[in-house]
């Protein structure tokens, strides 16, 4: 139906010290260009939203990210989500003032879940995207990880997503650490499991290799699909993803 909300196709730009990088399983980082330039290019390719993930290790270089966000917001007039290193209401305030429309929070919410409610009370749920890096534990259940998938946070992933939604997260960015970088498809079982438990938008991430993979993720219950390197290196274009979604009967812009 033409009247329903379109599936969002979202390129994600991992940014370190002002440059876009993306590695396989978050290691072996490769430089894929200037973030403002890439964001502008994706804006022109009918991306529905842009996500910046600030992976800068040192806080001294965080100011670089505010500058990147600000310069992007001046020329790209689609929604801009920024995550990485967000721990407090003040961090969110700074990013919104720089020009972000939404803010992603991950480790900061694991360390102190109440920060979700604090941010939602101050700015509204719609600014807050709870990002969860999830892997399959040896016993088969899904667990939340930190440190780029290396460490278990000791939290069951499906419960965590539901709890975050209850506390006031506006969307869930669900990243499969097992699928990330493999290009063999999203973790559909994970998407279905989270979809069953939450009534807020679900953004699927990790594992995209072909246009059909994005369709599979939406069929499994994702409201939006996110990818990085397949877009950056031109293996799949946003237009191809949208054509595949449209052919499968999903509304796209």
């Amino acid at each position: 139906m033409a009247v329903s909300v379109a599936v969002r196709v979202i390129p994600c730009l991992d940014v370190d010290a002002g440059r876009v990088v993306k590695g396989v399983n978050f290691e072996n980082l490769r430089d894929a260009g200037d973030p403002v330039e890439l964001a502008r290019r994706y804006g022109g390719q009918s991306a529905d939203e842009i996500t910046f993930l600030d992976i800068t290790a040192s806080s001294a270089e965080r100011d670089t990210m505010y500058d990147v966000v600000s310069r992007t917001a001046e020329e790209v007039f689609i929604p801009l989500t920024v995550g990485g290193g967000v721990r407090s209401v003040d961090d969110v305030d700074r990013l919104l003032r720089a020009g972000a429309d939404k803010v992603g929070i991950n480790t900061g919410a694991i360390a102190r879940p109440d920060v979700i409610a604090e941010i939602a009370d101050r700015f509204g749920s719609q600014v807050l995207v709870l990002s969860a890096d999830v892997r399959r534990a040896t016993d088969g259940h899904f667990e939340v990880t930190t440190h780029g998938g290396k460490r278990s946070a000791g939290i069951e992933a499906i419960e965590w997503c539901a709890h975050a939604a209850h506390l006031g997260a506006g969307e869930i960015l669900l990243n499969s650490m097992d699928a990330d970088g493999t290009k063999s498809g999203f973790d559909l079982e994970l998407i279905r499991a989270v979809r069953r438990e939450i009534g807020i938008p679900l953004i699927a991430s990790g594992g995209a290799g072909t246009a059909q993979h994005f369709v599979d993720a939406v069929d499994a219950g994702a409201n939006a699909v996110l990818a990085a390197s397949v877009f950056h290196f031109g293996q799949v274009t946003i237009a191809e993803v949208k054509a595949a979604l449209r052919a499968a009967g999903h509304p796209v812009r």
Partner: protein
Amino acid sequence: MTTRVVVLDYGSGNVHSVVRMLERIGAEVELTADRDAVLAADGLYVPGVGNFHACMTGLRAVGGDELVRTRLAGGRPVLGVCVGHQVLFEGSAEPSVGGAVPGIGCWTGSVVRLEASVVPHVGWTTVRVPIGSVLFAGVERERFYFVHSYAARDLPAARWRDGAAPLVSTAEHGREFVAAVEDGALRGTQFHPEKSGDAGATLLENWRKSL
């Protein structure tokens, strides 16, 4: 002739993009809550993100509710966007931490929570536009970017301003809701034209040309 637009500055979220977009479509833009500047502008843009009651508290702190009423009494154009559109109604069902605050009340009735399996409504959605729309000229079939959990359900005649017959555009998320209102000098959009790419730019350009 340049068109001067004031973006009402009352501490509401990301106004950076609003200012840049209005400049892009050829307006001369000032971000301020200064009374004289607000009343003298050709158009007043009222932004708003987050909680309805927090927005109203911020608006009242700068006298924004009174400035909107004063402009409208003189037939001077006002455009409310997202929560800046919602506050043009009498109130909201949205929960409030610091107590419920009434809206400006240009239109009677309150905004209510969306009824859909997934809320908030986030993303690009088409709008049903009535014949005669000025704002949507040329972009009637485009999608616009929405991000909200509350909206006006409808705008029946009983809620109109005196003597006005507004053009109401609708969208659907679970159920139909009010996506935009064109009511003489008073206009509102539930979506974010400043985040709606080229379609949003055209809509704002249509508004600027009408000022």
